[in-house]
């Protein structure tokens, strides 16, 4: 009897446990709450917004929501309702065309969507024509299309003639330098070597070199113009007890391959990079190989190049781009000498990007060996926000606004290219690899659709775009940067915004059928491989691969991506 009772009690307990977990699976536990937990105001039109929740955080959306709700407080989109209530939820996820149509969100801010082409083709999203080409009186009569590049329009204006998406935040990896540390230790190149052969400034020789822009008295004075200057600076930094560059061992490939993406773009320029997406045009600088398969070189060691008409059929020849050759040279050189990078972080696969950022920020305070430069994304400050905040609690001098970091203008491979930058003949080029896009789900009721369209229209006003930059310290991939008040940005943000404003921006959006059908193999993080056996860092660290060998292996690898 007792045993029976025990069995029944156990069974009951297990049922209760199952029921509890089932209830938990139900989710949406906010009684009367929206998708973000805010209580629903039934008197207002409800707008559910999804945003990709990663490095850019959600503060920008909270700010956008507040401003939009205030601006449209007295506008009615649905009968019997006044104003709009924006709910938002952030997740790190992707959507299929069906999911876009069926999920609870009305407006999406996606990052690197796997399948936006099909999201457009399947009719999962609403045409945005009414807000794209109509001048907006609240935005100096500008249209959204005017703020986009031809390359972006080419993708987001689908073959049926309608616009379905608008580029949103932009970013890629590069080098962030600790300007405070540079100033403290004098890590700036001198205009002229002193008598002892010092290439860095000293109290006796304080004049900095003119830097990449070729003008004295600007913020880039003393920064390296060429790869050679960069590595010479690294050697000096290392000799003074500081690690020149740090990156996280857990995500080495991601950080370095995308840094490569920017190195390649910075050498090739926007037009040549675009050929890699349209597979159409004349590739100007393709490296020539000798008959034995080695790189053919000029007397000064630079590669011999040729030009070639590129079509979909032979676009694998772009693997020979000189920019790729030099980008690989840069990274192989960086990884081949432990004096150039922070070995403890870079070679430890337990070190994530946030730990790496923490070490970059903290080590000076803790008296540990510091790193002078961080290989990371433009958005790194947001990810490191907690570290900035807790350090600021101890001493205000560690606060984000009181520290100086700078976006390092990437150096050029040769003196010749550096001279072109300095003279203004060539612009630096930055690649946006994120392809973040905003869009509206199709099939919404008239009122909600109107509200959603107004929401996006407002999102792309200069005022809202500038607010995005003030909140995140980063940028949206459309033209508005002249509207950003630099006095509201910290040193790093100013350096980034100024750099991007002065650069050509290339976008990784398909511009040809072949690219579209091989989009996953041709993503920048995937396509700079060499052979199939290893990543760049493993090739260098494990097998001692040289830059030439890596470049030669890249030829077959890139061909294998899509041909």
């Amino acid at each position, binding site marked *: 009897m007792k045993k029976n009772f025990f069995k029944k009690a156990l069974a009951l307990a297990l049922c209760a446990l199952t029921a509890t977990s089932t209830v938990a699976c139900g989710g949406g536990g906010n009684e009367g709450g929206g998708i973000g937990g805010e209580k629903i105001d039934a008197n207002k039109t409800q707008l559910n917004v999804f945003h990709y929740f990663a490095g850019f955080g959600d503060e920008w959306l909270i700010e956008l929501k507040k401003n939009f709700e205030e601006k449209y407080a007295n506008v009615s989109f649905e009968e019997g309702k006044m104003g709009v209530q924006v709910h938002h939820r952030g997740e790190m996820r992707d*959507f*299929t065309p069906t999911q876009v149509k069926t999920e609870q969100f009305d407006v999406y801010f996606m990052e690197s969507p*796997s399948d936006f082409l*099909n999201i457009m*083709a399947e009719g999962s999203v609403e045409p945005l024509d009414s807000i794209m080409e109509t001048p907006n009186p609240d935005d100096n009569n500008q249209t959204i299309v005017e703020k986009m590049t031809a390359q972006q329009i080419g993708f987001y204006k689908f073959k049926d003639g309608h616009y379905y998406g608008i580029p949103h935040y932009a970013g890629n990896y590069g080098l962030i330098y600790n300007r405070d540390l540079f100033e403290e230790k004098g890590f700036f190149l001198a205009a002229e070597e002193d008598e002892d052969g010092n290439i860095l400034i000293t109290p006796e020789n304080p004049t900095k070199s003119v830097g990449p822009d070729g003008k004295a008295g600007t913020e880039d004075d003393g920064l390296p113009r060429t790869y050679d200057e960069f590595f010479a600076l690294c050697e000096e930094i290392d000799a003074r007890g500081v690690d020149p560059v740090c990156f996280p061992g857990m995500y080495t490939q991601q950080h370095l391959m995308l840094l490569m993406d920017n190195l390649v773009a910075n050498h090739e320029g926007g037009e040549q990079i675009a050929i890699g997406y349209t597979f159409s045009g004349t590739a100007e600088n393709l490296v020539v190989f000798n008959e034995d398969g080695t790189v053919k070189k000029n007397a000064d060691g630079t590669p011999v190049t040729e030009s070639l008409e590129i079509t979909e059929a032979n676009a694998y020849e772009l693997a020979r781009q000189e920019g790729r050759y030099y980008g690989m040279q840069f990274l192989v050189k960086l990884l081949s000498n432990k004096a150039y990078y922070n070995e403890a972080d870079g070679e430890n696969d337990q070190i994530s990007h946030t730990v790496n950022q923490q070490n970059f920020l903290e080590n000076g305070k803790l008296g540990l060996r510091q790193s002078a430069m961080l290989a990371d994304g433009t958005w790194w400050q947001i990810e490191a926000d907690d570290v900035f905040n807790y350090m600021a609690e101890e001493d205000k001098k560690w606060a984000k606004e009181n520290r100086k970091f700078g976006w390092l203008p990437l150096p050029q491979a040769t003196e010749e290219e550096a001279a072109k930058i300095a003279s203004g003949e060539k612009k630096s080029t930055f690649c946006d690899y994120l392809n973040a896009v905003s869009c509206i789900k199709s099939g919404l009721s008239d009122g909600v659709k109107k509200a959603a369209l107004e929401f996006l229209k407002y999102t792309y006003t200069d005022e809202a775009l500038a607010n995005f930059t003030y909140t995140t310290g980063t940028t949206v991939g459309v033209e508005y940067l002249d509207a950003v008040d630099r006095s509201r940005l910290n040193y790093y943000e100013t350096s980034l915004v100024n750099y991007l404003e002065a650069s050509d921006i290339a976008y990784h959006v398909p511009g040809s059928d072949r690219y579209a059908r091989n989009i*996953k193999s041709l993503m920048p993080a995937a396509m700079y491989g060499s052979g*199939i056996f290893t990543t760049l860092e*493993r090739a260098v660290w494990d097998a001692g691969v040289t830059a030439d060998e890596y470049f030669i292996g890249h030829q077959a690898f890139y061909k294998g991506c899509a041909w």
Partner: protein
Amino acid sequence: MRKMKKAGLGQNTFKSKLFYTLLVLLPSLQFLFFYVFVNLNSFALAFKIFPTGIAKEFEWGWDNFTYWFTNQVRNTEMKLAIGNSLKSYAISMCTGLPLGLFFSYYMFKRMPGAKLFRILLFMPSILSAAVLATIYKNVTGLVLGGANGLLSKWTGEVINFWDAEHRYTSMMVFCVFASFGTSVLMYTNKMDAIAPEIIESAHLDGANGVKEFWYIVLPQIFSIMQVFLISGFAGIFTNQYNFMMLFGYEQPDVQPLGFLLWRGVARAGGNTTQMGPYAALGLIITFIIVPLTFLLRWTLGKIGWKEE
């Protein structure tokens, strides 16, 4: 019998038919959707070509099959992965199987520390594979081989168990260890079911431990061994050998075919236009492995031990 009547089971009534229908409805639907539909879809995907990258604009053809043979890099990657899968299966069988049998017999004979070994060997099945892989990587990397690792202190040099030279061995040691849990549990349970009288009579006939194992125990557990051999062989090209847990996306030189397939589909991120070549590769290996699996089953049935 009375209980059966009370429950209404076993009677050909409407109620019992309804009960059985409802009972099998959900699993049947699940089977139809998640197996039949999904596989039909992937069969179709293997023959679909998307010239513009748009799912609606497709053509039928063999491009997804030729994809693996027309480019040297992709062909090498596929062949390398197939080689890794075959090698890994052979290692699992040649080391995992005999060791599993040995440990099981050791426990069956209640040798010293048998219960402790049972817990230790079953541990991999209790812990999540991700946790176990992390522990293993840390133990081999930092505790044994790292700068202050035990082996490094002993040998005087830092040993990297995860470099190009050692990583495949490290992976296989982990896989063999992780496989012991289920196999040892199954073998020991089957061994425990052997009638003590049979063992006793063998002893009376003068059989020693080896003969007992060979002539009594092995024939009795051969049906279980057959399950492991056949299911392992059928999954030879889909087994990922914990690759993702140990390496993430990297180190493709030691990737088995199962991981190559998974990586390709995962990278497509729900974009079906990017999955065709992997669907085709799946179909190719199915055509190879299905007849071979039936052949293995037939062979084992012919040459293997019989329980009686």
